[in-house]
Structures are given as structure tokens and as C-alpha cells.
């Protein structure tokens, strides 16, 4: 290049041009930016994204499962019961709670809210349901609880030990609870109750040699879980 010739006035661009072809650490800069990009996107993907995706919603008031379980005889089924036709009642309706809570029994503020704003006004409590599945899903509690003798905790977690309701985080795009995909954004789970997506059901329902009636998939027939 021109380094041996009589030096022309060196302007900044020439210096810059002179240094770009093989700058000290040029490749390093590329790598640096790559790493910065990588790191930033990982932060976004792993931390920012989950925060932005879910909005925190609050239940109408808090509920203490542990305390209530001490008061009833049949454990979960005392309030989450099977009807005579085999369907599952889900979250209890006002009529079930009013059996005891016609008037305020204890001293908590939550119960006061319940009795004043709901029992007295005959309004159903608009609970946010953690396990709510899309309309295409048909789930039979009878088959799993009575048939397969699964414990409630297997899918719903140790709710009976909780003294307050876990936070409800709603996915802004789909409208379903964070508990469906799982609290962990990676979708990896440690406990059976961490996730409730179709693949989690399939874990049992594709057991080879048992659920195999579908011609297309070799697993359980589609209509067993879908409607």
C-alpha cells in the first residue's frame, strides 16, 4: 500500500481504511458482536419473553385449601365432586359453599369479601381456572380418578397443602393459564403436575401395547380426548 511513499495528508478515513483490512482484533469484534447478539437474545428469550408473555391476574379473593381440608371428610371429592351421571363438577359453585358460609365463619378478609360480595348478592364467584383447556379437549375425571385411580396431585399438584391460591398468570396470546405450558418457559418439567399440554397426557396414552387403537397414529383414538 502507500505506507512507503511520500505521506499525503493523512485524513481520518484513510487511517480508518488503513486499519480495516486486517485490524488488530477485527475477527474478535465480529465474535464480540456475535456474542453480544447471542447473549442479548438469550436474555430476551429466557427472561424478558416470559415476563412479557404472561400477565398477572388476581383471583376474586384468596382461598385456603389446607384449612378447608381439615374441615371435611372426603378430601378433594368433598367439594370437587362427581355427579351421578359421572361428570365432574369442577370448581365448586356457590350452592356448595353456602352450606357452611351462609354467614361469615372466621375472621379473614377474604371470607368477608366472599360472603358480602358473592353469597349475599347470589353471584357466582368468577374463579380463574388454572387447568382450563381449549374447547377441543374432552377430559374424563371419572376415567382417571375412578378408573386409573390417579391421585389428584398427579395432575394438579399438592394443592391440599397450600394455604393460599397460587398466582394466576394468563398467556396474553392464547388466554390460557401459565400452568398449561408449565411455569418453566423451557417446557421442561420435574413433577408430573408441572404441565398440562397434550404431550403430557400422551405420556400415558401412548404407552405401547395398551392404548393402540388408532389406525393413523398407533396410539389412542383421537376422539378419546377430543370433541
Amino acid at each position, binding site marked *: 500500500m502507500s505506507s512507503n511513499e511520500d505521506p499525503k495528508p493523512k485524513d481520518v478515513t484513510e487511517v480508518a481504511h488503513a486499519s480495516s483490512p486486517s485490524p488488530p482484533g477485527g475477527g474478535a469484534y465480529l465474535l464480540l458482536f456475535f456474542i453480544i447478539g447471542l447473549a442479548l437474545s438469550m436474555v430476551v428469550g429466557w427472561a424478558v419473553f416470559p415476563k412479557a408473555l404472561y400477565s398477572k391476574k388476581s383471583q376474586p379473593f384468596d382461598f385456603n385449601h389446607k384449612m378447608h381440608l381439615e374441615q371435611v371428610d372426603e378430601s378433594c371429592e368433598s367439594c370437587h365432586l362427581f355427579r351421578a*351421571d359421572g*361428570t365432574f363438577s369442577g370448581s365448586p359453585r356457590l350452592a356448595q359453599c353456602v352450606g357452611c358460609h351462609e354467614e361469615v365463619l372466621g375472621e379473614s378478609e377474604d371470607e368477608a369479601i366472599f360472603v358480602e360480595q358473592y353469597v349475599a348478592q347470589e353471584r357466582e364467584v368468577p374463579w380463574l381456572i388454572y387447568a382450563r383447556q381449549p*374447547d*377441543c379437549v374432552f377430559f374424563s375425571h*371419572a376415567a382417571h380418578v375412578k*378408573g386409573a385411580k390417579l391421585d389428584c396431585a398427579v395432575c394438579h399438584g399438592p394443592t391440599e397443602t397450600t394455604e393460599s391460591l397460587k398466582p394466576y398468570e394468563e398467556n396474553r396470546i392464547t388466554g390460557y393459564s401459565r400452568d398449561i405450558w408449565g411455569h418453566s418457559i423451557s417446557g421442561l418439567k420435574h413433577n408430573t403436575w408441572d404441565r398440562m399440554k397434550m404431550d403430557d397426557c400422551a405420556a400415558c396414552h401412548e404407552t405401547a401395547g395398551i392404548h393402540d387403537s*388408532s389406525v393413523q397414529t398407533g396410539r389412542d383414538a*383421537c376422539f378419546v380426548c377430543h*370433541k
Partner: protein
Amino acid sequence: MKEAQTKHRPKRFGMAIDLDKCTGCGACMVACFSENNVPFREDESDKRRSITWMKVYKITNGEKFPHTEVCYIPRPCQHCAGQHEGHSPCVSVCPATATDYSRETGIVSQIYTRCFGCRYCMGACPYHARYFNWWDPIWPKGMERYLSPNVSPRMRGIVEKCSFCFHRYQLARNKAFNDGRREVEEKEYQTACTQACPAGAITFGDLNNPAHAVHQIVRPNLHEEHNAAGIPIVGKAQNPHAFRLLERLGTNTKIYYLSSREWVRKAGDNYQVQMESDPHAADASGH
């Protein structure tokens, strides 16, 4: 002692429809619409667009007055077993695994969330039993209150068809599990059309189960035999009055029709068809 679903004797749900009793009243059609959240539009006279999971056709012997005879044929999805149990025409062509054959029950199901509306299955079905939602269903304001939560309402772009009311089977199994048993009894699982038919023309049940009425009426031969064209046929009825639609195609359907009239039985397999047709329609699917 868990066994594969297909190892113990599987069920084969099917129907026997007595065409001597069928009056063509259409109650089966409306019972199905009501049970399965089937949509409706203001003009339903274009029968190529009208969604009727159960459809009552009218055929005639083509004779002049006063020797004219007509017969009504209710046609739900035939739940074809196809050849080699499970190769129903529609199941074989679906690219989205939206339609499936259950070897345990013989039911061909349609799952709306997987269907993307290519309509290949509609082309494959020889019975015109599948319907496409060209438009989003609209229920007049307030009418959505009568929709059943047991069947998902569909959106546009989805194919739908008769499901043998499998949601009722699931609900019956719910009850069975709750009662501590695994098997569902004959009367606990009946389709909406069977239940509604005022003439009692439809019988529904397990064709494999000798205790079920439909088996006793049809007396199906459960061993595979080959017809003249070498196509494997399963379930040929031993009742001489029973026939299946287009049996020679080897679709091995589960809907058996009974008629004491020979021209009707022949019409079922296309020897002699006179379909009531709209002169302006491209196809002759008629009534």
C-alpha cells in the same frame, strides 16, 4: 391385567336402518343438528352447500303413475372400515391426521382442530357424507344459548361429518367409570338419531356383540370374504333383507339397511338407481 385395546374383542359400532319403517320425516336429521351444534343459514336450498350430517335421500322405482314407489334412505356417515380394518377412504387420504379410525370401536372420528380444509376426504368419500364449512357459522343473537358443550362448534374452513355421537360414548364411559365398571351397556350409548326416530326405524349398537339388537337383526359375517372382483368384504349381512350402500366398493361400512322391496336393495348398490334430482344441480345427489 392391562391388555392392548385391540387385543380383547373390539367393539364395532353400527346401525341397522329399517327402510320399511322409515317414513322420511326428517326427525333424525334435526335430532343430529340439535345434538351436534350443526349450523344453518338463511337459504339452505343449495344442497351442495347445506350441512346435513344425517341426510334423508328419496329414491323412486321410476315407474309411472299409479305404480310409482318411493323409498327414503337416511344416510349418516357410513363409518367405513375400508379394507384391512381402518383404511376408510377418508382416513387414507387425510394429510393432516384430522380423521382417524379407532380399531377399538370402529368409529371414524373427525377432529376439527387438526383439519385445515383441503377437502381431500370429501373427494374420497363415496357417500357424500362429509360437509365443508364454507363460511363461519352464525347463530342469530341469543340462539347460541342452545349449543351443547359436548360437541365443539366449528369455524370456517373445516370439514365435519356424522360422528356416531362419540361424545355420548365418552359420557357413557364417564358414568361407567363413576359406577365402578368399564363396559358401557347397549342402552347407555345410543346416537341422537336412533333415539329420536319416531318410527323406531334405526337400531344402533355393537355389531360384534351377539347380545346387541343390531347384531341380531343384521347377523353380520365377521370373517373376510372376497367378492367377484376380488375385493375383500367384511361384515356381509346374513339377513337377506339387509344390504349396504355401494357394498361392491369394499368400503365395509357399518350402516345396514333393511328393505323387503327388491328394487330398493338393488338400488343400494347402483344396479338400478333413480335419484330424485334437481335438474339444475351438477350432481345427482338429490333430496
